[in-house]
């Protein structure tokens, strides 16, 4: 099973420009999580801080008991071997062709024979649809191909934790759908902990077990997918629906005057460019390709979520309960979908689950 990543109170600034403050979240082992957030909110910086490429001002990031913010250089290199990271631009080695790029981690860290390496590399290249391009240099392929090659390289050591920075940007919708399926299949096969940073709403709705969002220098929320998908938070609603109306502006934040003006335009019938339908709500999650093993994470996550069910907002509770099968309802001691749990107060604050094992 993949490793658990516990982030506590992480804060990062460049000079006196604060990027985000007090980010606390736990990536549950073996589950797929997605981090959303408008462009420039520091999602890439967050990923880089998680692997020790950037040094946060304070906070902890614990993986297998090692706090990578404070640990020694040697320890850091050790821990990084657990990671497979896809950078936003692929970050391929410009002087090596695709084959050598993907073979690089194997040659560095394993004693495999060239024949074995060849088998693995060709397998990963086929997985990402790059067969036939092995001999090309990174400068000679398209942006989307670079991305996929970067992913192939990230997967080659069967990592326990996979970080993907916008795996879908620069890919067409069909390839993005294949990629979503690939990530889910991968999770079913090697049970790795996966964190995906993306702007792709469709991917965010269908792929992850957990969803989070960064905005205004803070982690707005992070928790089971149902929580964010049913949230009433204006930022979340705006982002999921891709509207102009709402707190997010072209530069990260809007002032009150602009908000008022846009609302006036909307009231006068000027469309803000989004579709009328509300994209929020819990949609069925992507399943592994038939024939592959079942995703272990699904069961683990259900157990965990059912335990903290009472602390989630009512809409999320309803979404979760509606997604359970009859057998599961019985297993968790519920009989029928309750219309609206009354005993919980209508809180907006969604806690990340408490540290430690869920």
């Amino acid at each position: 099973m993949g490793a658990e990543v516990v982030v506590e109170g992480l804060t990062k600034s460049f000079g006196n420009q604060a990027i985000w403050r007090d980010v606390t979240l736990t990536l549950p082992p073996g589950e797929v999580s997605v981090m959303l957030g408008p462009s420039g909110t520091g999602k890439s910086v967050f990923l880089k801080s998680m692997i020790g490429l950037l040094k946060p001002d304070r906070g902890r990031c614990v993986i297998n008991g090692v706090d990578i913010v404070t640990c020694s250089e040697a320890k850091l290199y050790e821990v990084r071997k657990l990671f497979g990271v896809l950078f936003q631009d692929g970050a391929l080695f410009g002087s090596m062709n695709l084959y050598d790029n993907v073979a690089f981690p194997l040659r560095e860290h394993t004693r495999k024979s060239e024949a074995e390496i060849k088998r693995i590399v060709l397998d990963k290249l086929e997985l990402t649809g790059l067969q036939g391009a092995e001999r090309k240099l990174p400068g000679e392929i398209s942006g989307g191909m670079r991305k996929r090659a970067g992913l192939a390289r990230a997967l080659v050591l069967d990592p326990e934790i996979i970080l993907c920075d916008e795996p879908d940007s620069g890919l067409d919708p069909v390839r993005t759908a294949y990629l979503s399926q690939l990530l889910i299949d991968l999770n079913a096969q090697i049970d790795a902990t996966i964190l995906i940073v993306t702007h792709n709403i469709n991917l965010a709705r269908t792929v992850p077990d957990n969803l989070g969002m960064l905005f205004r220098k803070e982690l707005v929320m992070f928790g089971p997918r149902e929580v964010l998908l049913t949230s009433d938070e204006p930022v979340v609603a705006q982002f999921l629906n891709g509207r102009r109306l709402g707190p997010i502006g072209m530069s990260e934040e809007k002032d009150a005057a602009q908000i008022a003006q846009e609302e006036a335009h909307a009231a006068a019938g000027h469309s803000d460019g989004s579709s009328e339908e509300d994209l929020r709500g819990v949609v069925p999650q992507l399943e592994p390709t038939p024939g592959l093993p079942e995703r272990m994470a699904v069961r683990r996550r259900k157990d965990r979520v059912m335990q903290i069910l009472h602390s989630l907002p009512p809409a999320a509770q309803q979404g979760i309960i509606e997604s359970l099968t009859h057998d599961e309802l019985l297993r968790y001691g519920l009989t029928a979908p309750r219309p609206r749990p009354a005993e919980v107060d209508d809180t907006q604050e969604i806690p990340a689950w408490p540290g430690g094992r869920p």
Partner: protein
Amino acid sequence: MTAPTRSFPGAGALRETGRLFALAIDVVVNIFKRPFQTREFIQQCWFIASVTILPTALVAIPFGAIVALQLGTLIVQLGAQSFTGAASVLAIIQQAAPLVTALLVAGAGGSAICADIGSRTIREEIDAMEVLGVSPVQRLIVPRVLAAMLVAVLLNGLVSVVGVMGGYFFNVVLQGGTPGAYLASFSALAQLPDLWISELKALIFGFIAGVVAAYRGLNPKGGPKGVGDAVNQSVVITFLLLFFVNFVLTAVYLQVVPAKGS
């Protein structure tokens, strides 16, 4: 605890210097880490040599000639004509050769190293390498620094030979000195440590050129434009450091090693 925004004038320069030294120490430590990147080392040696040999030779000939001419005239005025050979050889081997070498290794080799590492940094290749658990210092920087050092030492030999030959030619053929006096004075005043200090200087200059180029390459400010600036700065910083270090080394050498015949 916020970011350290309070600072005093010159703090930035001090911080940069400190980090430059940290990288230098890192490079030295990583030289002894296995596996040694032999292939990269040979490629880099070949590359640096190929961009520096010709310009160095071309610079060395007129340099030898200048030294010979200038000293020749001066020494005639002083009336110590028979020592022209020794004087020009010492000047070339101890001062001119290591500096010419270093300027070319820094100007041609260092700038190429800096541009290469810099573009890798902005393409996130360096980050990717670290994340793959491979130290970029050990893998990329060490072979380059060692290559710069080796090439500097070899080029220093080349410049010495070419420079001395140039000096000899000018002295004997154009200024009417006698070959015998030239050679005799040479063995009367020059000694083996003169050659050692020359090679030692070249070695140290090669190291400085390599480390400064790598440091600036690893820390470009903001994108491709930053790489251009970094290359520029790396050459300037290296030159400044070289002349300073040369001054220190020369002063120490003259104190420590007694001049022959005194």
